[in-house]
């Protein structure tokens, strides 16, 4: 820092900062979390690519038409979409520092997320019961990997959601909690974006094959 040349007094203005300025705590968290989400996006892109390559290899086993139940997928999709907007309402309540309303919206978000996971697990259980296990064919291996990874993300999102609700209940809407809630907001909406790809390219395209 002291290496910078300090100009004589009353001369030209300084156009650089000699000492590094203060960064408020957590100032770079949102950008860092966004970059994490982008790396997560790459994971999902490669799982989509794998499914795109292997999705048609049924090994004389069940095909999407035999397994997928589109009305159930539609219900599942609406659960995730509803949880996205209720999380948005929670963020709006947080902006107005209305803790009670925010916690209520977070509970509703969590319930929609739980419904999503439950429906997905029901679907998986149904498929496995019919013999459509991940070992059955390359199509099913890649299907379970892709959809399972998404489901795992949602599950961890739920764990995170409950953790933050406890945090807010104990410490209130302090700056750190607001930041954490905004990170989870990005995570949650990001998972909904990934699900658009899943229901379009796995379920709907699968039915078209």
């Amino acid at each position: 820092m002291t290496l910078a040349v300090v100009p004589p007094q009353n001369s030209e203005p300084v156009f650089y900062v000699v000492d590094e300025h203060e960064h408020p705590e957590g100032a770079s968290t949102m950008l860092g979390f966004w970059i994490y989400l982008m790396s997560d996006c790459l994971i999902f892109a490669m799982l989509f690519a794998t499914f795109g390559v292997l999705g048609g290899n049924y090994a004389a086993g069940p095909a999407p038409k035999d397994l997928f139940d589109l009305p159930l997928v539609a219900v599942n999709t609406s659960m995730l979409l509803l949880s996205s907007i209720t999380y948005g309402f929670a963020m709006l309540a947080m902006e107005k520092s209305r803790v009670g309303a925010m916690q209520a919206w977070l509970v509703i978000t969590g319930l929609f997320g739980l419904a999503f996971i439950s429906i997905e697990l029901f679907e998986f259980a149904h498929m496995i019961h019919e013999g459509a296990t991940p070992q059955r064919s390359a199509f099913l291996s890649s299907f379970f990997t892709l959809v399972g990874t998404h489901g795992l993300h949602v599950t961890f999102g739920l764990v995170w959601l409950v953790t933050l609700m406890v945090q807010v209940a104990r410490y209130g809407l302090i700056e750190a909690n607001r930041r954490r809630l905004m990170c989870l907001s990005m995570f949650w909406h990001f998972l909904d974006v990934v699900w658009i790809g899943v229901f379009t390219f796995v379920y709907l395209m699968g039915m078209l094959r």
Partner: protein
Amino acid sequence: MKTDTHALQPASGEHAEHHAHGSRQSYLIGFGLSVILTAIPFWLVMTGVLDKQVTGLAITVLAAVQIVVHMVYFLHMNTRSESGWTMMALIFTIIMVVIGLTGTLWVMHHLNVNMMPGHDMSTMP
């Protein structure tokens, strides 16, 4: 210059405005658009009103549009947040995803087609 103005701004307000949450109205617009953009592809596939190729193309386009809607209305993407670095990270990721997806699908599809059992190599030039 850039760092100067950054340092002079009050720390509290600056980062709050970068992460605007949008309004109730913008969330509802995003939700309404998403419902429509989800309902149409499900309806197309479940009723089968169009032939398969057109349906496939239509649902791909609708998915792309819905992803943009989510990005704008739910994730509040814009070119200004974090001095444009979130957008830069997004553009970089999109480039990587496009290279990865098209490359994988292109190479592996041809590998798959040409390595099918019973493929007669004598017909190859």
